């Protein structure tokens, strides 16, 4: 492009500035190569190895030896050879059962020793294995064995005991790793079991599959009248309340996430459930799956920034007529392209773009007059990744508007009469009708209204409340739901990289910080990495937990979802997430807070590694950090879930000035992440004003290209700022009322909802036996009352019988 710009001295100067800015930006981004797209695949969780190694902090590494020691001590005492691999299956089982017996001993040391020995077994008896793979195989084998012998339940019992009788009484100024030793062992066992069983592998036997199913059912069952997930949530509340600062919160959250993920199901199950429920509700099947489609998307080119502004100025000066014609072109193409097959086109288009890119890079392609990179050439068949959708509401509004315009009066509730309307409107209605999509939420809302209106004649059937784990979890969470949400967000705030550690009300570092602070430089470097990693893992698990809850409740019943999301909004989730993104997000995503040598199991296989500044850096180089990217996407998805179709909350996005924050985050070249950012931008463009849109045409076209179109939605040009005053209170209150009605109908006491329809008690003994409370005044003046009301008023009781109205 420089070859072209040499010709004019004026442009040469501009391009130099541009280069400078670009270079600066690259440096500030941590040297991330902007042109490369991140090869990231969004999933429910990272791979097994990473998920397991994230369970342990680096300060915990010395404790692995303790587990081995406990195991050795127990085995020696019982006179059993130490090598687990050499034992016969019967002996292994017997060892496990004996250890299990120790779990119920009153002596704390013996219990702790047994727990450590069990953890060592669950960790795959690593002192006997040679490779990581072997360790995983043994973990898998041992975990099935443990599960079969009821270890999971026993450890949950142990957890109950430890929660009650922790070292809470001792209020120390600084809580450290040592305070949570027992709890951490328990959590490590539970997490290893859950994660190992949950992870699917290619060589799963049928028996393993069965066991997974059984375990999935078991984990969704209440133990001692409490779901495991709820027990963990209660722990989170306790931790946030400050009454249990020693809880290893990272492990609690990780386990909570995995328990929810495993018992309710991840992306796959969500899709299946949605399809199933849509079918039950008699709705058309889903059109596309967001994750599927975005997998085939390309990341947008580096978005608007200072360079773009310069471009925009250039364009305005030079090629304004051309641009206008371009825009016309694409908008015309839209309708033609809609009916065509999407898949082939996408591929073709991608190839084309890729070819163009390659040519551009090698300088073969003749450059267009503007030096702007990637000027969109009027494409022949521009396909969009999504089929557009229309809501029934939109169609009604469209019909009403046209009728008002052409006929002069509206026809309420009529969607077919087109009399008096011109042909283009007919066509418009036809297209709209083609793309009508009724969401499950809308169906559930109308259904709920019907149920409310006819409480006696209509009963909830199976389609209304499908028996699924979510239902039980929601019902169990309902009484304390606001507290759970607040607690989770509090921890998220404390773990966000931008928050200052001094002003924190809660200390989330208790389960990383060792008793003695590091002495050497390397050690403190290591601790620094450890702390950052700890925070990242907490953010990752909380974002995943909230997202899972939102997604599952949304499918199960929209009002459950609304209840949770409203509490999230009230607890300031929206500004919190924005605050989170108001950091150098590219640096966050490329952060490398991992020490490969200290990860489990590498840290226990072979010789203990010597830690030097160099060895901290060892390990596979990575372009991005999986957990951070995952967390970012989750947070954006949460934000999308909260704000979609909620006018008042979109206004919050505007008020909190989210546009520049979000736009900056667009620099991360990951299609899914960008898609969610673009969605967030799209819903607020209307309110950002003409100036913003003008300056951000690139972002605007990215939105056009990547986000689903709503056919009558005038998101890009509409200016209905005045038409809809921002009434946060009213909207949220209306929603709140609907949600409360739903909650009390479904989960409240039946007598409170419909007092008039309760059966009347006409057994004489029970009615007369009911305690009657008389006021003191009445007691005092009882005789007066008797005199005036009873004795002075003769009642002819026979008349009562003859009165026809009574019977």
């Amino acid at each position, binding site marked *: 492009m420089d070859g072209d710009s040499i010709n004019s001295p004026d442009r040469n100067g501009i391009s130099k500035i541009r280069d400078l800015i670009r270079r600066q930006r690259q440096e500030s981004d941590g040297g991330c190569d902007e042109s490369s797209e991140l090869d990231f695949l969004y999933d429910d969780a990272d791979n097994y190895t990473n998920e397991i190694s994230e369970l342990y902090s680096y300060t915990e590494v010395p404790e692995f030896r303790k587990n081995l020691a406990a195991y050795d001590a127990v085995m020696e005492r019982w006179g*059993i050879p130490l090598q687990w691999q050499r034992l016969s299956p*019967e002996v292994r*089982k017997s060892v496990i059962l004996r250890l299990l017996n120790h779990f*119920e001993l009153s002596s704390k040391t013996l219990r702790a020793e047994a727990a450590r020995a069990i953890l060592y077994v669950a960790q795959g008896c690593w002192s006997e294995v040679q490779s990581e793979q072997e360790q995983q*195989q043994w973990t898998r084998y041992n975990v099935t064995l443990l599960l079969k012998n009821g270890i999971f339940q026993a450890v949950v*019992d142990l957890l109950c005991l430890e929660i009650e009788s922790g070292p809470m009484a001792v209020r120390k100024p600084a809580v450290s790793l040592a305070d949570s030793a027992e709890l951490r062992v328990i959590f490590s066992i539970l997490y290893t079991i859950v994660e190992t069983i949950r992870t699917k592998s290619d060589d799963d036997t049928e028996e393993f599959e069965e066991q997974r199913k059984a375990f999935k059912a078991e984990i969704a069952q209440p133990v*001692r009248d409490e779901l495991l997930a709820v027990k963990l949530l209660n722990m989170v509340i306790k931790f946030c309340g400050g009454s249990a600062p020693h809880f290893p919160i990272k492990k609690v959250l990780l386990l909570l996430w995995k328990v929810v993920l495993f018992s309710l199901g991840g992306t796959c199950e969500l899709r299946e459930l949605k399809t199933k429920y849509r079918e039950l509700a008699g709705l058309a099947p889903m059109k596309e799956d967001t994750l599927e489609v975005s997998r085939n998307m390309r990341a947008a080119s580096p978005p608007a920034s200072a360079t773009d502004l310069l471009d925009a100025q250039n364009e305005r000066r030079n090629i304004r007529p051309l641009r206008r014609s371009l825009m016309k072109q694409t908008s015309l193409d839209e309708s033609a392209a809609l009916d065509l097959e999407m898949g082939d086109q996408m591929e073709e288009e991608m190839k084309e773009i890729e070819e163009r890119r390659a040519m551009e890079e090698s300088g073969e392609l003749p450059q267009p007059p503007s030096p702007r990179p990637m000027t969109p050439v009027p494409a022949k068949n521009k396909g969009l990744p999504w089929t557009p959708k229309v809501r029934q509401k939109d169609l009604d509004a469209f019909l009403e508007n046209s009728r008002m315009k052409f006929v002069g009066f509206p026809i309420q509730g009529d969607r077919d009469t087109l009399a008096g309307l011109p042909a283009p409107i007919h066509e418009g209605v036809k297209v709209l009708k083609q793309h009508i999509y009724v969401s499950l939420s809308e169906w559930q809302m109308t259904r709920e209204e019907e149920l409310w209106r006819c409480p006696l004649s209509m009963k909830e059937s199976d389609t209304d409340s499908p028996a699924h784990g979510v239902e039980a979890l929601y019902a169990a969470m309902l009484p304390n739901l606001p507290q759970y949400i607040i607690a989770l967000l509090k921890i998220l705030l404390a773990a966000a990289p931008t928050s200052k550690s001094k002003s924190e009300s809660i200390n989330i570092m208790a389960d990383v910080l060792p008793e003695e602070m590091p002495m050497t430089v390397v050690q403190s470097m290591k601790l620094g990495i450890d702390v950052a990693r700890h925070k990242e893992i907490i953010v990752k698990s909380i974002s995943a937990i909230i997202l899972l809850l939102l997604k599952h409740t949304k499918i199960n019943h929209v009002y459950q979802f609304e209840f949770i999301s409203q509490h999230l909004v009230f607890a300031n989730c929206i500004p919190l997430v924005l605050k989170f993104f108001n950091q150098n997000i590219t640096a966050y995503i490329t952060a490398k807070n991992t020490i490969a040598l200290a990860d489990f199991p590498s840290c226990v296989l072979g010789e203990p590694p010597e830690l030097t500044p160099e060895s901290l850096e060892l390990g596979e180089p990575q372009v991005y950090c999986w957990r951070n990217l995952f967390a970012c996407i989750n947070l954006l998805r949460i934000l999308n879930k909260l704000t979609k179709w909620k006018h008042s909350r979109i206004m919050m996005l505007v008020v909190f000035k989210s546009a520049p924050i979000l736009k900056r985050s667009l620099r991360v070249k990951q299609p899914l992440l960008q898609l969610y950012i673009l969605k967030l931008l799209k819903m607020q463009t209307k309110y950002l004003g003409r100036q913003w849109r003008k300056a951000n045409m690139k972002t605007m076209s990215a939105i056009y290209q990547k986000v689903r179109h709503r056919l009558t939605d005038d998101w890009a040009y509409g200016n209905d700022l005045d038409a809809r005053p921002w009434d946060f209170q009213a909207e949220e209150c209306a929603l709140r009322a609907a949600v409360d009605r739903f909650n009390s109908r479904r989960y409240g006491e039946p007598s409170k909802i419909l007092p008039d329809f309760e059966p009347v008690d006409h057994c004489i003994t029970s009615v007369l036996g009911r305690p009657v409370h008389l006021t003191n005044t009445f007691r005092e003046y009882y005789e007066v009352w008797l005199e005036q009301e009873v004795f002075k008023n003769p009642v002819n009781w026979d008349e009562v019988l003859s009165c026809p109205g009574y019977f």
Partner: protein
Amino acid sequence: MTMSEVKVIVRRNRPGTKGAEFCKWPEEPFEEMDSTLAVQQDPSNITAILTPPETQDEEVWKYEHLRQFCMELNGLAVKLQSECFPETCNQMTATEQWIFLCAAHKSPKECPAIDYTRHTLDARRLFTQQVSIRESSLGKLGSVCRRVYRIFSHAYFHHKTLFDDFEASSHLCRRFTSFVMKYNLMSRDNLIVPNMEDGAITTTTTTTTDAAPVATETTTKVTPPTGNTTESEA
């Protein structure tokens, strides 16, 4: 009538029976029983009791037996009440070495022995909530066994005469021991009441164990059996 002169013993507590009369009838000798119940009335015939009918689902069979054990253990519990007081046995002990926690609470805690007995036997939720046996509840049988067994061991080590008395008439501990051994619900080493079954106690040395390693004695590493079909439920 001549019939009325023969005193028929009705072994039944009619409604309104006085406390003094409750269950006050002579034991019927085994030889005189002529109903089909006779089979069930011989507690010493353990093998017969523990052999399931042919078409019986094994899991339900185990479950029902355990339920029966808990019911019959009430006999021992009643006897224990006269001798085992919270003041004397303030912990659930079996030998002086082991003190156990009572698992029947929201979080396990130390209960006096008699309370442990009562709580464990009363923990109805172990049984009532499952009419059909779910796969997931199977693992719990083992833990119920463990807890119930401690009642036997406490009685044996701390109330020996009472235990012997009860055992002589019911053979319950013997039966329980064979039951858990038959279905492999407890580790042999945890069965600490001696002389109950073909020498359950003799195995405390566990010398038999290292006789069957999975792999041969060569130095090649042993890979875990991924199928784990045959081994685990040996």
